[in-house]
């Protein structure tokens, strides 16, 4: 989450709760709502590394709040992140490990594993369908994220079929 917070702070200085809100507003319910504690911990680490600085802002009848802003070093780190290509999804698939290893133990057979997994993927897909139908038409960020998730699931299902053809 470090770089996401840096990106938000590059726009304008903010305190922890504002960052939480900005993430929620940008990604909608498509993004697991960040835990405020986790945001403060991350900000603390960023400050320790010299990527952000905090100033105390006095508030009437409430404790001071810390407003964070980006340092030059923070901006440099952010630029590097934006400029470099992002790693694609790697196949580090827990199910595939099960599929290959489980029959060796005699605990389960591959056909049964594949069938159960297929239904699991489809139930996720059904939920994404629901989620997409509840997404406002102009909420492109959320809609694209859901569509991305659907395409990943489609690939997983196609792969499952390949496994079924060659391993059972």
């Amino acid at each position, binding site marked *: 989450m470090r770089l996401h917070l840096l990106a938000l702070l590059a726009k304008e200085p903010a305190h922890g709760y504002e960052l939480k809100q900005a993430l929620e507003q940008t990604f909608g319910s498509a993004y697991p709502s960040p835990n405020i504690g986790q945001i403060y911990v991350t900000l603390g680490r960023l400050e320790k590394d010299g990527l952000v600085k905090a100033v105390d802002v006095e508030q009437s009848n409430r404790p001071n709040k810390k407003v964070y802003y980006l340092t030059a070093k923070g901006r440099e780190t952010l630029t590097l992140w934006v400029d470099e290509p992002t790693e694609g999804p790697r196949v580090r698939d827990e199910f595939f490990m099960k599929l290959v290893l489980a029959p060796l133990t005699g605990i389960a057979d591959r056909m049964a594993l594949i*069938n159960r997994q297929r239904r699991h993927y489809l139930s996720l897909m059904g939920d994404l*369908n629901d989620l997409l139908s509840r997404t406002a038409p102009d909420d492109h960020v959320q809609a694209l*994220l859901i569509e991305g*998730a659907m395409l990943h699931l489609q690939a997983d299902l196609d792969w499952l079929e390949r496994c*079924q053809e060659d391993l059972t």
Partner: protein
Amino acid sequence: MTPVLKTVHLVKIYSDGAVPVPAVRGVDLQVEPGEFVAVMGPSGSGKSTLVHMLGGLDSRTSGEIWLDGQRVDTLSESAWALLRRKKIGFVFQFFNLVGNMTVADNVELPALLAGASPKEARERRESLLGALNLTERADAAPGQLSGGEQQRVALARALANQPSVLLADEPTGNLDSRNTRDVLKLLSNVHKEGQTIVMVTHDARVAGLADRLVSLFDGEIVDDGRIARKRTRTAGAVIDLR
């Protein structure tokens, strides 16, 4: 409750070539009213052959097919065709619309053939084309429509006679995502209204609407079970954004 569809040890062996090829090898399937069944499996697993036999488009080699409590595989060709007009809607990957009839007539025809009055057929057509955002295309010829629009017309046509069961074979096979979305919406709506659907598909989005999955492999059912709803709250539960 009488199942809408039932097969008993249904078998199809293609024997046109030198070697007989078994495509469907003893399928027992029962579909209850209102169920939405997705049929999946690798190519060559027999899924298209299965739904074609259910729809009377392909003859069985042995076994039984029951539709609304009536055995149909032993009917004469013409009696089966008559029953099919009333009770079955079919939609394929390629739309098979009648080229020299308007979109409206293409959709009304099956209802009229099934015995609906012209007024009923027109009302049904208007509501289906409306649901698929095709009202303005009613007077066009199919050839003037995009592939996606033609497929939506084909779906409207398949539903025009209010069939006991909608059979579909890769209905979104060559649709882009926007057209797929319209098709998904209509399928989901008619299913909610109680339409029974049996659909062969590779498209996980369409299959995700179903409440039951039948998996075929080498002509046999290797899995048959419900598709649970998990109540995923976020796409982030599927794609890890962090």
